[in-house]
């Protein structure tokens, strides 16, 4: 019994220590309308999957962080320098509310930029909306973030519905495909993609030749590809967060199936592409709203990643973070150029003023008070003679609901 | 042997794979009787106990308690019918104090529905107080009372044996099986134990079946003895006769 008493006291001691520790956090105030701006220093932040099952997406957070470090090193934006804080939410929607509250009440950031992940972003929607802090360009294409429109949330990543609809449209109108199939990751991202493809095909009086779901992490793709082959589809759209592009194309090659493939530009990375059977690569189209990492215009990005995140690989995931952060950068520049001190309403005003806006990284972005979905323009690429080439100019994304 | 048997074992056989541990043993235990079992190591004595109490599944045979067939009953159900044993390798709850170990034996006599244990209702507390009082009474008889708050894992082996006996008595057995109770006891402890268990048996009226290697100790405790070898009963009768029988002497020699 003495032993039990002792552990009871242990409990109390730990409790007291916990209270003490927690109180040590300076976290008194309510979020003011302009917090996180001290002179010419601006605090920004984002939740990021630094650990957990989806660390792959952490590269996007690193890209955003690299952007701000690069901006700071080059004189800032109209003299403003940025301190970008990433808080690990492990890609767990139960922990994102903690991360968001920490950013808002402890780190007191001015805005959240490029918070990563769909489940995470949705989990804090009501909190972010309630606080009113700007959340700019989350790394998620979930339509629910901007429908309905929330005053302080703006998205840049094309909604997965529009994106997949764009791919289907390209298959039908440019490739003149008579039958289009989709292979998609069996989760919300994949299913949203399926919805976009289905809607676009319906506009052309078509239906998917087949729709094949797969689990993230699947090893053997031959069964899935065999079903695509059996459907006789001429064009196959590959959909997922980071779709297993190489295994799918290898599986297709091994069963002698060569349709035209359409996939997202994450897969156009040279190191990925080098593993694809050449005969399949010749039939593959990549779409993107971002420049490729090797583009001439991305020299700053490449230098910044090498300098600040040498462990990270140059690739489209970190390009994404860079581009998303650049939209914030442009809006911030626009706000302070009008001699306005940074404020939430000022930032929202600047964003709402973006009409067919382009900067060095993002094209044809349009926001308005009733539309917070930027829908940047996309282009299509293809590998020819070992080098990737644009096969279309920037094309507007189709609007489907 | 006029009294009706409390326990009837007939044709009890236990095989492990190809090995016959107990081969067709039959045995009657009269109510209130005292039976000793002797035999060399590996004779199947403990296996016989385990088959009777339900720890080991029997291959063939029949077991009846007061005429009721319990052959297919689980160990806990047999315990509820009064078939209780202590173990050669002690089976106690090492992390708990002595008192709790003994009180576990009163499980079936805690009268409240188990689920009420989550809520400290008066009825639960009353029942627990009664159990504790009964456990302490037993512990006093076995001179365990000063140790009531000690964890059993801290006790010497002979004391642990005693705690196990106290727990078994707490069940209020109809037939009590003691498997080598005197192991690890010195002469003083043995004579103390002998006295206590005799007294308790007289008071509580249970039948006693004891496995023991210390034959002279056993002879003082029981009035009927059975000798086993290679899973068979090779002799039975009055202790002095069994001990002296040539088969028994030979089985120990061989």
């Amino acid at each position: 019994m003495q032993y039990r008493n002792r552990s009871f006291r242990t409990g109390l001691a730990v409790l007291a220590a916990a209270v003490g520790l927690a109180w040590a956090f300076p976290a008194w105030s309510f979020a003011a309308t302009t917090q996180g701006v001290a002179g010419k220093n601006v605090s920004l932040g984002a939740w990021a999957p630094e650990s957990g099952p989806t660390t792959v997406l952490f590269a996007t957070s690193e890209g955003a962080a690299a952007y701000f470090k690069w901006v700071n090193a080059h004189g800032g934006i109209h003299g403003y320098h940025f301190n970008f804080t990433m808080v690990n939410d492990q890609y767990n929607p139960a922990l994102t509310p903690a991360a968001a509250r920490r950013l808002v009440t402890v780190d007191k950031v001015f805005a959240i930029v490029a918070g990563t992940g769909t489940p995470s972003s949705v989990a804090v929607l009501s909190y972010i909306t309630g606080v009113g802090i700007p959340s700019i360009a989350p790394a998620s294409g979930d339509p629910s973030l901007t429908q309905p429109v929330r005053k302080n949330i703006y998205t840049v990543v094309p909604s997965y519905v529009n994106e997949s609809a764009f791919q289907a449209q390209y298959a039908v109108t440019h490739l003149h495909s008579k039958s289009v199939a989709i292979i998609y990751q069996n989760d919300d991202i994949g299913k949203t993609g399926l919805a976009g493809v289905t809607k676009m095909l319906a506009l052309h009086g078509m239906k998917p030749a087949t729709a094949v779901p797969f689990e993230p992490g699947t090893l053997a793709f031959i069964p899935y590809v065999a079903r695509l082959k059996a459907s006789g589809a001429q064009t196959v759209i590959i959909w997922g967060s980071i779709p297993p592009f190489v295994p799918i194309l290898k599986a297709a090659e091994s069963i002698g199936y060569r349709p035209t493939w359409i996939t997202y530009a994450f897969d156009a990375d040279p190191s990925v592409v080098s593993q694809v059977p050449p005969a399949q690569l010749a039939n593959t189209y990549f779409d993107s709203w971002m420049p490729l990492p090797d583009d001439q215009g991305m020299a700053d990005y490449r230098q910044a990643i090498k300098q600040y995140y040498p462990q990270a690989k140059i690739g489209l995931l970190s390009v994404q973070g860079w581009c998303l952060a650049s939209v914030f950068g442009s809006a911030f520049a626009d706000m302070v150029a009008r001699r306005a001190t940074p404020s939430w309403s000022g930032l929202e005003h600047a964003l709402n003023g973006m009409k067919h806006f382009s900067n060095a990284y993002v094209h044809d972005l349009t926001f308005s008070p009733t539309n917070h979905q930027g829908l940047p323009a996309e282009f299509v690429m293809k590998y020819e003679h070992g080098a990737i080439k644009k096969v279309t100019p920037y094309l507007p994304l189709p609007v489907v609901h | 042997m006029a009294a009706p048997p409390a326990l009837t074992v007939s044709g009890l056989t236990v095989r492990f794979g190809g090995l016959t541990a107990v081969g067709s043993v039959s045995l009657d235990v009269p109510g209130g009787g005292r039976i000793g079992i002797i035999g060399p190591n590996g004779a199947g004595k403990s296996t016989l106990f385990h088959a009777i109490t339900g720890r080991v599944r029997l291959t063939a045979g029949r077991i009846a308690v007061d005429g009721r067939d319990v052959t297919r009953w689980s160990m806990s159900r047999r315990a509820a019918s009064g078939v209780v044993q202590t173990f050669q390798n002690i089976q106690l709850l090492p992390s708990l104090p002595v008192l709790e170990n003994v009180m576990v034996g009163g499980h079936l006599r805690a009268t409240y529905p188990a689920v009420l244990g989550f809520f400290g209702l008066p009825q639960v507390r009353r029942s627990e107080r009664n159990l504790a009082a009964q456990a302490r009474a037993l512990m006093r008889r076995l001179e365990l009372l000063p140790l009531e708050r000690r964890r059993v894992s801290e006790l010497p082996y002979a004391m642990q044996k005693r705690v196990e006996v106290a727990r078994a008595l707490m069940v209020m057995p109809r037939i009590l099986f003691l498997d080598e109770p005197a192991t690890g006891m010195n002469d003083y402890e043995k004579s103390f134990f002998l006295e206590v268990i005799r007294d308790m048996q007289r008071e509580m009226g249970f039948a006693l079946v004891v496995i023991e290697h210390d034959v002279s100790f056993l002879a003082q405790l029981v009035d009927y003895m059975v000798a086993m070898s290679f899973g068979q009963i090779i002799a039975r009768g009055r202790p002095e006769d069994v001990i002296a029988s040539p088969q028994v002497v030979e089985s120990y020699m061989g």
Partner: protein
Amino acid sequence: MSKRVAWLVVGAALIAVFPWGVGSYVDYVACLALTYSLITVSLNWVMGYAGQITLGQGGFFAVGAYVATCAVAHYGWALPAAIVLSAVATGVLGLLLGVPALRLQGHYLALTTLFFSLAVPEVIMALPSLTGGSNGINMPGTATLFGLHLSNLRAAFYVLVVLLVAIILVDRTMLKSKLGRAFMAIRDSETAAASVGIPIAVYKIMAFTASGVVAGLAGGLYAPIAGYLNPATFDLWLSIYFFAALIVGGLGNVYGAVIGGIIVIALPQLFSQVQNVSNILFGGILVVVLLALPGGIADWPRLGTGVRWLRRPR
């Protein structure tokens, strides 16, 4: 006033003022930590007392949270009724999960229950019309617990503390009854338990059921606090975290379970500001604690022996 009462008063006062001194961030973390503590305490009933290794707690948590949310969002139930429904549902599931425990031992049982926890999010994904599937589901903000909005984290904090204290009292009471003794007898020696007439099957199932009820209550409370559920929360690692929480806190000790639940939530928060090493630090601390204190943090009085023994391994 005895020393113990003084301690209690100090503790109660600290808890009472706690949510007012910290911001909503710490309040949220505290609520999450208390929820985890509740579940770890329930896990302790099965693992610490009844000695059955289980990784099913994540599944219970998920079912509890989703049942409450669906009952409120789709069927218009009042929140208290919905939470009770959660507890009933997880209790039934616990009862079913207890059945394999009758036939399986040790790590077999652990893996069986792990597959239960893995299957739960699959089922959630497979029923999108009910659960929102992978899009997740919102608990209506109008739901209140006897007038309390649990999305108000301070209110939620007090509710959780009250529930946790109540469950600790139940735990203490149970240990002093034949129920607790039977659980521990089964843990220490099933042979001994059976030899005194304890029906092992009944008690194992009872442990799983009771544990399910408490984990379901915790899930039901978590739903309105978080306001949004997504199957991504209830992945493979969740159940393993509860397991780790109990081992680190102290198997078989209710205060250890509480501490463990708090630690697995609070400790990673200390490293949550990204430094690329949060997993290394968190994992490293787990390993070091277990090496120094195999009995968990609640075993700290024996830290000396642990360390000494660590210096000179077997």
